[in-house]
């Protein structure tokens, strides 16, 4: 079947099998390999992308067909004009990543989180990131990073 999905502002129209998961559409049909696959059960969140600007979804638990005609944002679309997004900068500043495998999903979940809750408390960040696993950092620095990014974004919102 033919699907057309706008990914990071660019329309991608492809013929796919209906069983193509959105994550494989992004990785194998669009060549955007920043979105990762870490499990089979919708548990790990390595595959999180943002749908229609503010909804974090696990792209391994959604078919590309379901995203036909919609907008998807991935980690590759976060940095603008060569400048890291405040979330990316904050993860860097706070050592919020190690192996980097969970990072794209963490960033995209955080991105949607800050759209809904621009100034989350530490507990709220911990609650909202609980659909994303990280094996390396122990989360402390990720939580710090998200809160730093929230501050930066509130001081100077990124137009996106």
């Amino acid at each position, binding site marked *: 079947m033919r699907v057309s999905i706008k990914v990071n502002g660019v329309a991608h129209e492809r013929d796919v099998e*209906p*069983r193509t*998961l959105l994550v494989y559409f992004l990785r194998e049909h669009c060549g955007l390999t920043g979105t990762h696959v870490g499990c089979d*059960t919708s*548990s790990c969140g390595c595959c999180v992308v943002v749908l229609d600007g503010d909804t*974090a979804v696990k792209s391994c*638990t959604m078919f590309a067909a*379901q995203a036909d005609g919609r907008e998807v944002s991935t980690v590759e679309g976060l940095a603008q004009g060569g400048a890291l997004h405040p979330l990316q900068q904050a993860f860097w500043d706070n050592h919020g990543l190690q192996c980097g495998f969970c990072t794209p999903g963490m960033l995209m*979940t955080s991105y949607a989180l800050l759209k809904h809750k621009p100034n989350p408390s530490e507990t709220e960040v911990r609650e909202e990131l609980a*659909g994303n696993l990280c094996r390396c950092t122990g989360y402390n620095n990720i939580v710090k990073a998200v809160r730093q990014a929230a501050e930066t974004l509130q001081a100077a919102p990124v137009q996106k």
Partner: protein
Amino acid sequence: MIPAAFEYIRAGSADDAFAQLQRLGADARVLAGGQSLIPAMRFRLARPAVLIDINAIKELSNIGIDNGRLTLGAVARDCAIERAPWIGERRWSLLHDASRVVADPVVRQMGTIVGSLCHNDPAGDWTTVALATRAEVVVRGKAGSRTVPIDEFLVDSFTTAVAEGEMATAVRFPVPGDRTAGSYQKVERKVGDFATAAAAVQVTLAEDGTIRDAGIALSAAGPCAVRVSEAEALLKGQKPTAEVIRGAAAAASKKSAPQADLRGSVAYKKNLAGVLVSRGLRQALARLGVQS
């Protein structure tokens, strides 16, 4: 892991979806949030020949309160409850609590309440909440839509009153009175897990401070969510004393008939049923300003 091949149909309207279901019969499955169905398909435990995607149907995503009922359409997401403007009201505290512990926060962006009811996992959250709140499910069949009380809707593990070719289109929760509060108590091994045990509690007080009405239900305590009618009867008309609460908790523990699994032993889960009902009652009452 890749699902077996299937045909995909995006339904444009509820009528369209229903017509497709009628046409395709047992070969088709309705795709709502897909958060249980798609993992099952990836393991090839589920291999429907056709998926009828109802996610794009606007009329099924509605959330609204009218005629004393909160109606949630078949593709209203879990997260929509968390974010509803009225969710902070005391009367909705049971729904509020539950909406924050269903699956995980990202899964809740796609998962639907009606889908969860139709899935009818023995350890589900929404089924338990629906029992305690005395919700009803709107089921569309050949003879038109009918309303099924939740107690009749939940038939057996993974089995509901929705027959072949039918679809559930909405769930309706009665809008509780002003002197109503609830609580959802869930013990889970980690975020995203099904309940080891959970209790949904909703209490309405009469003017004189006695309990006018109570809804008590358990998750992971039987083939599907269990109403503890014995506890409900015990509470009704009583002053909410510690003794009454103990009685309700004991009734819950007795009624709980869980299966031993990786989440815990039968004895532990039966104990939890009582503890969680007790805690739920105390929290609901505290929300109503009653210390017990």
